[in-house]
């Protein structure tokens, strides 16, 4: 009796949710579209991998939730979850046979329902196979769950690693071609997907790394802490030098496209660090931040382009102007919103962002700002005849910009001004009661943030060569807010990690078009639910956690 109730609670209920999720995944066309792409050539397509992974995940959830965790219960629950999920898909297929689902769900094609979902077997045999497969996956997952935790971790990591390699094959290919002899590339990749042996070798390679880390990792960490301070700092310096060297040679080793992605991420790091000062330090939610980015780009365009103003100044001379106007705009736009708080501030600033975009787009200002045709022929940066032309050259400019901005943010962070900002973020009234001038500190934050954004805009304008109002819509602002919180609000490395995750990854996955936005959305939700502090939270929290641990150790 007890066991039947457990099956209902942990098996079938999870299976119902899983069934709905899988039906949705199928109906939005993800499975069908992804089957066109191979992970392991002629063995597993991405669609099938997704389909299986979803099933495995559902059964795993069922197994994990089972209490008490008796082996038999776990297996039965997992199997029932798999069966229920399959049952839902069977229902969908049967429904699809009687009703033309395509009138409503355009992706419910015949191919999907009667072929892909049933692993290529058609007719009622396919339905039976689907049910059996559901149970099989459940059984497999249940047994897998009963393995020791260590083994599970290793297998999961290795599986994830191989799948990741398969998904990103297009990127791996040029990198391999650039840096390694052809043999490796031939071993790992075919023209479409990984080779079977390649996938296996990646699997084993990652497994070895995970195993060795879990055996030796603790020792290494202890060894590190055991080192004298001086030695630690020498090692740190060496590490920094290696890191710098890697950063400097990266574009030439990773190829054109990766450099492009890194430049884009770099631009967003600049933007993110700027907004991090406004939102992360000072706690002023600014949803119109793109305005300053636009101002930077447009000032550069006006100064350096032969169109419109025909000044034809150099890129370098545009920088101070752009930053000056950016800061000026930041302060001027900051003044009217000084008294607003929270979401009033957010919407008012969003309004500013939109106003700026509409103004540069407008026919009314077209003679001065180019209207919808934008401004073209923006100058590329040049030093002594060397032109920063493609992404591999612009990259260095952006790295320099990022370093400058990281340096400034880092200096400000723990200074008198940084503390004032953080105090305002925590409690504006009390901050004022502690002698902090809200007006000047808020304007300082707005101005600093706007300056960084303008710098980013300068490089952006020059990199693209021609700018259009369309590039400065509200989604840019929203993206930046998301990335600084995703990375860990108020944290400088967090911004970099956040930009890499939320800008870099979608950029790498450009060919997945719509689905990357879906995944982006789900990632935001899941991340906030399971790790709201972000990927790399602010130091103070960590510092404290660390201290707690030492306290425990001593006490």
């Amino acid at each position: 009796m007890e066991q039947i109730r457990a099956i209902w609670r942990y098996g079938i209920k999870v299976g119902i949710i899983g069934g709905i999720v899988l039906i949705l995944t199928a109906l939005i066309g993800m499975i069908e579209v992804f089957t066109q792409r191979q992970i392991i050539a002629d063995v597993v397509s991405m669609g099938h991998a997704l389909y299986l992974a979803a099933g495995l995940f559902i059964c795993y959830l069922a197994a994990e939730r089972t209490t008490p965790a008796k082996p038999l219960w776990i297996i039965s629950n997992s199997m029932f979850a798999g069966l229920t999920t399959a049952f839902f898909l069977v229902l969908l297929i049967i429904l699809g046979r009687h009703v033309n689902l395509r009138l409503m769900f355009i992706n419910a094609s015949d191919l999907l329902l009667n072929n892909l979902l049933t692993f290529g077997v058609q007719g009622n045999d396919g339905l039976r196979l689907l049910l059996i497969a559901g149970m099989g996956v459940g059984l497999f997952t249940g047994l897998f769950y009963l393995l020791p935790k260590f083994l599970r971790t290793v297998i999961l990591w290795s599986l994830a690693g191989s799948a990741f390699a398969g998904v990103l094959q297009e990127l791996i290919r040029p990198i391999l071609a650039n840096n390694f002899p052809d043999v490796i590339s031939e071993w790992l990749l075919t023209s479409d997907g990984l080779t079977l042996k390649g996938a296996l070798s990646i699997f084993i390679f990652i497994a070895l790394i995970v195993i060795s880390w879990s055996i030796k990792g603790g020792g290494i960490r202890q060894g590190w802490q055991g080192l004298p301070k001086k030695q630690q700092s020498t090692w740190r310096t060496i590490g920094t030098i290696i890191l710098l060297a890697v950063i400097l040679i990266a574009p030439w080793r990773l190829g054109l496209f990766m450099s492009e992605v890194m430049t884009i991420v770099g631009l967003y790091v600049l933007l993110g660090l700027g907004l991090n000062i406004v939102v992360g330090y000072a706690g002023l939610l600014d949803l119109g931040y793109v305005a300053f980015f636009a101002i930077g780009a447009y000032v550069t365009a006006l100064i350096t382009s032969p169109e419109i103003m025909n000044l034809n100044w150099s890129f370098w001379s545009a920088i101070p102007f752009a930053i000056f106007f950016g800061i000026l705009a930041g302060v001027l736009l900051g003044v009217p919103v000084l008294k607003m708080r929270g979401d009033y501030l957010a919407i008012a600033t969003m309004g500013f962002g939109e106003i700026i975009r509409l103004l540069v787009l407008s026919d009314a200002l077209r003679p001065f700002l180019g209207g919808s045709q934008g401004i073209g022929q923006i100058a590329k940066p040049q030093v002594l005849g060397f032109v920063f032309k493609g992404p591999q050259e612009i990259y260095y400019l952006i790295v320099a910009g990022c370093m400058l901005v990281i340096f400034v943010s880092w200096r400000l962070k723990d200074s008198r001004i940084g503390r004032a900002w953080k105090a305002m973020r925590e409690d504006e009234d009390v901050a004022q009661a502690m002698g902090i001038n809200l007006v000047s500190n808020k304007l300082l934050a707005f101005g600093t943030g706007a300056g960084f954004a303008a710098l980013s805009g300068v490089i952006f304008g020059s990199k693209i060569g021609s700018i259009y109002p369309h590039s400065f819509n509200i989604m840019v602002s929203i993206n930046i807010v998301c990335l600084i919180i995703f990375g860990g609000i108020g944290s400088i490395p967090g911004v970099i990690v956040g930009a890499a995750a939320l800008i870099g990854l979608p950029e790498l996955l450009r060919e997945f078009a719509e689905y990357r936005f879906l995944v982006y959305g789900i990632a935001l939700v899941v991340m906030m639910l399971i790790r709201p502090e972000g990927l790399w939270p602010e130091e103070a929290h960590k510092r404290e956690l660390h201290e707690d641990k030492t306290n425990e150790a001593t006490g």
Partner: protein
Amino acid sequence: MDGLDIEIKEKTIHSVIGPNGAGKTTFFNCITGFYKPEAGEILLENHSLVGLMPDRIVRLGIARTYQNIRLFPDLTAIENVLVGMHAHLKSSYLGIILNTPFVKKEEQEAEAEANRLLKFVNLETKANMLSKHLPYGDQRRLEIARALATRPKLLCLDEPTAGMNSGETQAMCDFIQSLRDDLGITIMLIEHQMRVVMGISEIITVLDYGKKLAEGTPDEIKRNPKVIEAYLGQGSAAQAH
């Protein structure tokens, strides 16, 4: 509030008491600039405070704490104190970015002073803890340390012993007295617990419905019939509910 006239003498411990809703906290908010009185004048050493922003008033030498502790929860203890010193630091924006010798020196001195203040309130070992994780009593003392960091002439404490047991309360009383004795700060106190008020204040003002009911030394207040009536009246009102 209406027709209130209170004079606080230098280096005294001056308590303001009254039943709930008597306007004690409102009175504090007026002094520290959060509310603007409709009429009347607030003077600190002949300098008018009415209409000044709270940050200006702090610079002139009035600091406060809050009834329901309002620290900066996600800042560490020492950062909370350093924020209090904000007004007296002079590092400029550019100076900070270039990390000039002046800024370095100032930061070092500020940190030293902050540590001294933390030591003064017995929190030197918890300097790097986030203030939201400190125990209640520590938070109270940290809030006072933060207020002290503004180098006040007048320190306004809003129910510093609220929620404390008798031992803690006694410690707090001693601490308040030491503030005045050691640092020479004038202290204004809002308190609920009569025992505390009577124990440490030199002058007591009784408020009721925004009006001054009585003023005098603890002994005078104890004997004042109006005060007794107000407190009893409140009690009987409570019974009527």
